[in-house]
């Protein structure tokens, strides 16, 4: 799942994800609200929930960190199979620290996204575990 208010970045990053051939399906959300709604709508259908979320930080209304606060409140069983990486162009030290400090965030990826970075995240999340 990609969460980003910027449609151009959604397009670019979904192409990059496509190139890596690591994921079967990409869910695009233009806001944190939309992503939360998606989780709630598929409460019964956990198959449809994403394994990995790439979350932008700077978004109008609900920003990346606010999304995480809301995500925290979701029932545990919805979050079981999901990992979150933040994806941002930020250079702000505060943002970087906050992202690293958040227990749900496994990694802060920097834009532009490279297939190799995604591959690395994929390996740590889904291969080492098994």
């Amino acid at each position, binding site marked *: 799942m990609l969460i980003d208010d910027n449609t151009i970045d959604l397009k670019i990053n979904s192409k990059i994800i496509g*190139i890596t051939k690591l994921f079967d399906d990409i869910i695009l959300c233009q806001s944190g609200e939309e992503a939360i709604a998606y989780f709630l709508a598929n409460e019964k259908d956990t198959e449809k929930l994403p394994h990995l979320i790439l979350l932008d930080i700077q978004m109008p209304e609900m920003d990346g960190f606010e999304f995480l606060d809301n995500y925290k409140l979701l029932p545990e069983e919805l979050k079981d199979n999901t990992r979150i990486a933040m994806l941002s162009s930020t250079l*702000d*030290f505060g943002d970087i620290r906050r992202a690293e400090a958040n227990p749900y965030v496994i990694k802060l990826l920097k834009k532009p996204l490279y297939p190799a970075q995604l591959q690395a995240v994929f390996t740590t999340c889904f291969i080492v575990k098994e």
Partner: protein
Amino acid sequence: MTRSPVKVLYIDDEENNLIAFKASFRRQYEIYTANSAAEGLKVLENLPIEVIIADQKMPQTTGVEFFKSITTTFPDPVRILLTGYTDISALADAINHGDIYRYITKPWNDLELHNSIKNAHDAYRSKIDLRNKIKELEKTNDELNRFIYSISHELRAPLVSVIGIVNLVKMEGLYHSSGEYWELIESCSSKLDYYIQKTLQYYKNNKNVTDKSEIDFKHLVNEIIELYAYSNKDTTFNININQAQKFIGDSFRIEVILGNLISNAIKYQKTSNKEKTVEISIEVNKFSAEILIKDNGLGILNEHLEKIFTQFFKSKNNQGSGLGLFIVKEALNKINGKISVSSDLDYGTTFKITIPNAT
């Protein structure tokens, strides 16, 4: 410049004094009088009084007691104590606890009192002016911070999108489809990105906040190499980090310093060199971290060595911004670090840095 007259509050239980005071000074000042501390407080609560004169000897509340009682509620007005007796203990008390500006004996001399009020008012003005200046500065500083933050997002985000698109073009094999245009777009965007990053580093470094956190040099160096080696995969790194001691320092600035030096070491290589190496060794002890960064790259002309740390110095051969080493030097200044450099043209450059350990 016409300024509204100074607002003076005079508190005295003797009606005659109040009348005499008014008679002497009503032309110069805007005078409010009160015949007790309680009355005086009422005036203070309703008017922006600038100078308070209080008689020491009053029934119920003395002048000093009154001044003490308003130190936190009305800290601004400047206080003058009037007294008929030279009571040393009252005087000491007044100075120590009542924040008294002047002490005047009764009966007062008109000229002396006038001068005291004038000086008191000047003190009041400068106190207020200073406070306004500080407020103004805080506001400017706040705006600058927000400006920096918005540069790092609003300005950089679309640029990063452009770089992302160029990367896609590369991955889809279209990079050479339009002559050298994509290459030009890429080099322009990365140059712009570089400038944005350096500008941010410079402004963040200018702020005086230093943070003290624990630094794991091994981790930091690996992160930096991972970040900068992207552009240049054929460089060999010889890393030798010896950190048995805890190191406390300013993590942002240290990252900036190492980042700039390591990326320079990677960047300024000879294209012909088959064995590009960058050596990084860090020795941490109780007092400092001694860092050595050595490359076998282009080297720096002897006559340039003195200038490399000045702002916007660029050598003709290299496409630098003239900011990197300047920022390194500025950041080191902020954290009391030292740097020295030695270089042989065509054989490489060595930077030695000492950063004090704040444990």
